[in-house]
C-alpha cells in the first residue's frame, strides 16, 4: 500500500516519491555515463597499444561486471537514502501547514456548520423583519405627524374663535352670549314697559 503523502505534496508541490525517483534516475544516469566514459578511455588506451591481446568485448564484459556490482550497491544504498529522505526531510511531521491553521482553531463538524448556517439565515430573516417593522413604524409616525398637525389646526381654529370674542372685549364668548341674552331680555322688558305706559 503506497502512502500517497498528499500532505507533503500539498506543501512541496510534488510528491516526495516523485522527487526521489527523479534523484534516483539522475544518479543512475551519471553512474552509467561515468562507466561509459571509463570504458571509452580504456578502449582509447588499448587502441594505442600495438598487438594488444585484450579485445573490446573483453573490456565491455569487465565494464558490465563492475557496473552490475556498482548498480547492486547503488540500489541498496539508494534505498536506504530514500527511506531517510522520506522519513526525515521530505515529510510533514505532526504539525499543521499554515493554510490549514483554521482547522486547528475551528474544527467544525457538519452538524455544527449546518447549524451555524441556519442561525445566519434565521438572523437574516429576523433582520429583514425588523427593517420592515421599522418602515411600518416610520410610516405611522409620518401619518401621526400629519394627523396631529390637522388636529392642532382644528384646535387653533377653535382658539381663534375664542380670541374673536376676546378681541371684542369679552373674555369668554359663551358668557358674552349669555350676557347678550340677558341684556336683550332686559331690553325686551324695557320696551314692553314703555309700550304699556305710552298706552
Amino acid at each position, binding site marked *: 500500500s503506497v502512502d500517497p503523502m498528499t500532505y507533503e505534496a500539498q506543501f512541496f508541490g510534488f510528491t516526495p516519491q516523485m522527487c526521489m525517483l527523479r534523484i534516483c534516475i539522475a544518479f543512475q544516469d*551519471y553512474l552509467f555515463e561515468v562507466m561509459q566514459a571509463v570504458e571509452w578511455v580504456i578502449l582509447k588506451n588499448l587502441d594505442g597499444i600495438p598487438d594488444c591481446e585484450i579485445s573490446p568485448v573483453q573490456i565491455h564484459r569487465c565494464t558490465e561486471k563492475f557496473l552490475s556490482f556498482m548498480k547492486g550497491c547503488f540500489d541498496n544504498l539508494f534505498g536506504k537514502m530514500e527511506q531517510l529522505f522520506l522519513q526525515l526531510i521530505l515529510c510533514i511531521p505532526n504539525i499543521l501547514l499554515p493554510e490549514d491553521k483554521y482547522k486547528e482553531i475551528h474544527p467544525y463538524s457538519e452538524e455544527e456548520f449546518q447549524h*451555524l448556517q441556519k442561525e445566519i439565515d434565521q438572523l437574516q430573516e429576523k433582520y429583514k423583519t425588523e*427593517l420592515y417593522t421599522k418602515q411600518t413604524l416610520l410610516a405611522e409616525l409620518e401619518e401621526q405627524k400629519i394627523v396631529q398637525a390637522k388636529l392642532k389646526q382644528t384646535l387653533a381654529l377653535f382658539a381663534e374663535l375664542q380670541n374673536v370674542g376676546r378681541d371684542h372685549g369679552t373674555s369668554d364668548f359663551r358668557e358674552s352670549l349669555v350676557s347678550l341674552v340677558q341684556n336683550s331680555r332686559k331690553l325686551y322688558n324695557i320696551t314692553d314697559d314703555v309700550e304699556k305706559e305710552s298706552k
Partner: protein
Amino acid sequence: TVSRVKLLDTIVDTFLQKLVAAGSYQRFTDCYKHFYRLQPEMTQRIYDKFITQLQTSIREEVSEIKEEGNLEAVLNALDKIVEEGKAQKEPAWRPSGIPEMDLHSTIAPYFLQQRDTLQRCVQKQEAENRQLADAILAGRKQVEELQLQIQARQEAWQALHREQRELLAVLRE
C-alpha cells in the same frame, strides 16, 4: 535539531562515501584485471577520475534539484513551521478526503463573524424599533388627547349653538 538542508547534504555525502567505498579500487582492478596488468598507473588514474567525476556529477545534480525546486528555502520554511508547531501533542489535523467538511473549518470563522454582525444589527434594529414604537404610542396618546380636546370644544360649541337657536327662537317671539 539539525536543519533539513544540512541533513540532506549529510545523507547525500554518506551515500556517496558508501558508494565509493563499495566500488573500491580493489574491486575495480578485479574487474578490469587484464587492463590493470597492462597499465596499472593508467588504471589508477582512470579509477580516480571515475570516482571524482561520479561524485561531482551527483553533487551537481543535487545542487541543481535544490536550485530548481528552491528546495533550501522550502526546507528551511518547513523547519520553521515544524519548530512553531512542535508543541502539538494530539495528532494534527489532516484532510479528511471530504472537501466540504475540510472547508468548513476554513470558512467557519467568517460565518461566525457574519453571525455576530447580524446579531448586533438585529439587536440595534430591535432597540431602534422599540424606541419608534414608544414614540408611536406616545403619538397615538397625543392624537387621542387632541381628539378629546376637539371633541370637548366641539360639544361646547354645539351647546352654544343650541342655546343660540333657543335665543333666536325667544327673540323672534
